[in-house]
């Protein structure tokens, strides 16, 4: 079985080619200022994106397969391809196997050299001034989570490429079995979580409230469990309609009363389960079946409301936004939200691009998630009454919104004015949220 590892990631759009990473690497690995020793090689040129050559620590490493001396091995613990100086015979066949320029002959030292990941603390990442290089710890998280039981049954019927299924499976693994799950009408019960043929789709208690009363039903259940002296987690897995439109009254009430529950909004920007109707979370310009594109109308005319911000204004115990392209960030927030839900109301807003309803290829879901964040269309932050709002990922140097929009069919018809409007909206939202970071505590 394959497994996941932590890894160095490179965001070409953020790299300005300064070369600090190469200098840090040469210094760390050879104590030298000569960049020939750098095991990360960036290739900067005027008027062209910066390209990169370095070891990918491949899952099926050809350098290892090509080594006749058993000197290269993929370390099963760290995932790094380890090079054994005592076994290497300097034949260079590893360099034939590598299609990425990741293992190369260093004439100055007389043998091949490659990135060893600096034992999980890469020198290049630490000095990168633009955030183009990052060290992703999602791999070790996946490994940790994979050791826990999947509390949904196999065979949920989500659409191909749906990240909601990925999200809820990961979430429940982490929450554990001491839980009652509420799934109001939407894609999540629609894919079979509440059950079919007389059985539930989960291995834990689950129920199907109305769109309108999810938060209040959970509040009642929690009170009863408390009365019995049992500490049970109350978890809502709701769509954006069940959160911000029809479900808002009971949600707002529960937040205001600081009920002990974790309310998770899976935001796919509309009523995707019932035929892609528009919701309060649908961004301006979006095609939906109720905001069509034609002579009279060019998609939705009004902006989406920012539900996470609205929940923050309730001064909940914990509020956070998350994206599945940044799992390490999500897990950190899920842990905090779970902890907060023991004290009072915790709200997680996870953005969930929908291949079926938004019209993009099923294989692109995570990339769409990533572009949402990289363009600031979605910002990652969390809030507690003590800390106020804190960005968990920098909003500096975003890519233009067009990079995000062009991937998605529901925005295909947008004219420049509409794109400009969305760009302004993104910038306004960021400015508004930045203002909250300057306040010590909301109140």
């Amino acid at each position, binding site marked *: *079985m394959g497994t996941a590892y932590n890894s160095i990631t490179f965001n070409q759009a953020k790299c300005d080619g300064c070369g600090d990473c190469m200098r840090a690497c040469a210094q760390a690995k050879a104590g030298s200022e000569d960049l020939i020793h750098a095991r990360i*090689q960036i*290739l900067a*040129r005027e008027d062209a*994106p910066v*390209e*990169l*050559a370095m070891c990918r620590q491949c899952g099926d490493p*050809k350098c290892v*397969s*090509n080594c*006749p*001396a*058993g000197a290269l*091995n993929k370390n099963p613990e760290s995932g790094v391809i380890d090079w054994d100086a005592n*076994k290497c*015979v*300097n*034949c*260079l*066949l590893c*360099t*034939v*196997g*590598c*299609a*990425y*320029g990741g293992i*190369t*002959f260093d*004439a100055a030292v*007389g043998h091949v050299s490659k990135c060893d990941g600096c034992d999980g603390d890469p020198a290049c990442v630490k000095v990168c001034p633009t955030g183009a290089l990052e060290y992703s710890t999602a791999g070790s998280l996946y490994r940790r989570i994979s050791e826990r039981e999947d509390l949904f049954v196999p065979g949920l019927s989500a659409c191909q490429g749906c990240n909601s299924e990925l999200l809820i499976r990961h979430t429940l693994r982490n929450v554990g079995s001491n839980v009652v799950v509420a799934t109001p009408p939407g894609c999540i019960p629609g894919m079979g979580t509440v059950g079919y043929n007389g059985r539930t789709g989960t291995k834990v208690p689950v129920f199907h409230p109305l769109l309108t009363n999810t938060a209040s039903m959970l509040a009642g259940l929690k009170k009863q469990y408390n009365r019995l002296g049992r500490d049970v987690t109350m978890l809502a897995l709701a769509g954006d309609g069940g959160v911000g439109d029809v479900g808002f009254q009971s949600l707002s009430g529960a937040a205001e009363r600081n009920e002990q529950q974790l309310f998770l909004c899976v935001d796919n920007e509309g009523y995707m389960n019932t035929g892609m109707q528009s919701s309060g979370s649908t961004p301006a310009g979006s095609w939906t079946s109720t905001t069509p594109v034609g002579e009279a109308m060019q998609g939705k005319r009004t902006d989406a409301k920012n539900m996470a911000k609205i929940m923050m204004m309730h001064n909940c115990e914990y509020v956070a936004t998350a994206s599945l392209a940044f799992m390490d960030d999500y897990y950190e927030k899920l842990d905090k939200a779970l902890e907060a839900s023991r004290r009072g109301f915790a709200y997680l807003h996870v953005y969930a691009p929908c291949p079926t309803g938004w019209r993009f290829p099923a294989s692109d879901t995570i990339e769409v998630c990533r572009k949402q964040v990289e363009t600031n269309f979605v910002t990652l932050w969390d809030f507690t009454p003590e800390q106020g709002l804190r960005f968990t990922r920098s909003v500096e140097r975003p890519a233009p919104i067009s990079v995000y929009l062009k991937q998605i069919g529901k925005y295909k018809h947008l004219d420049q004015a509409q794109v400009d409007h969305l760009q302004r909206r993104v910038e306004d939202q960021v400015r508004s949220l930045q203002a909250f970071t300057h306040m010590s505590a909301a109140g």
Partner: protein
Amino acid sequence: MNASKYLIVGSSHAALEAARAIRMQDDAGSITLISRDTHAPYSPTVLPYVVSGRSSADRVSLRTPDYFQAEAINRVTGQALTRLLPAEQAVELEDGQRWHYEKLLLATGATPVIPPVPGLDRIDYRVLRTLDDAIALRDAAGKAANAVVLGAGLVGMHGAENLAEAGIAVSVVEMQSQVLPGYFDAQAAELIRAAFDRQGVTMKMGRRAQRVEPQADGCRVHLDNGEVLNADLLLVGTGVRPVTDYCQGSGLDLDQGILVDDHMATNLPNIWAAGDVAQARDFYSDAKVVTGILPDAVEQGRIAGMAMVEDPALQPYRGGVPINTYTFYGQQAISVGISDTADTAAQVAVDFDAERGYFQKIILKDGRLQGISAINAALDPGILWQLILRRTDLSEVKAEFLAQPLETGRRLMSDTWR
């Protein structure tokens, strides 16, 4: 009868890579590896380093001791394959035991070609193909004073360097006018030959051993120009040929090796072949060739394994490209693709500096890379191999590529297939 779902004959790169590919898709189906050799799996490529002492014979295994148990791969060692029984889906081994298979991979590799030199059969000469050969050569080198090496291919050249470094007077006899034909052109080969000259190795180019005569303490090698070389150690490195003796009467299509299609399948059902024993499509022509090189054995082994396990991600073989790396006296030689061409439509750019021992030759045709060979030039052979296989159009970056193949190659890689 013994039975294994996947039966693999051989235990070097192609065999091991196939087993890995099979286990990726089928974690329960029985896999059995049969080998003539009794040692833990090793690569023939590492043998010169065992001779030189750079590698110790007990540390050259391609897999850790617990690998086969962990992957549930059964091993039968010390048994050569003697007969194929395709009608029964079975093979027969040296000692008569039979194995039934559902899928069979022949990765039996190659064995040294012994030239028909009169008298050779009466000499205790050395070859270098197995670990036992390497240990024997290493031991013989410890006692020898004069050595003759027949052949200036990779085995001969590595052998000559090792023996010379051990303080032995070495002569290399090569029929062709240059060393390492096929990987380097005459100019590059001359640079390599000169390095051996400087180290005191006598290079007899364009010479043929006419007969060999046993002596009390070795032998006497008579060359075609009348010269006579005395040797107490004779190393024969005149090439290898696929091991196919067990194929007789099986109905398997053979030429120089076992003929295979782009999924490494032979003409018989449920039998595949890969590595040095296989004869597969050439990249540059429709001919089928035995490439006999390590990276290709890995590639073919992986494809065969994926085909045997019906891996849906299987992509057909893209054709054999001659490719090699060769280090000699601390210098690095690399050859990817063709190293010479008679094609007048090809563009050839050579950068040569005998003083610095530097050589770089790039062959392009129709804006596509055909081959690059170099000595002491920093290059990424793996990237260049991909540029050839992908037939990447270099027309727009041609000047840049010719001036800086390393950087331009990396940039193309990062932009194209990262």
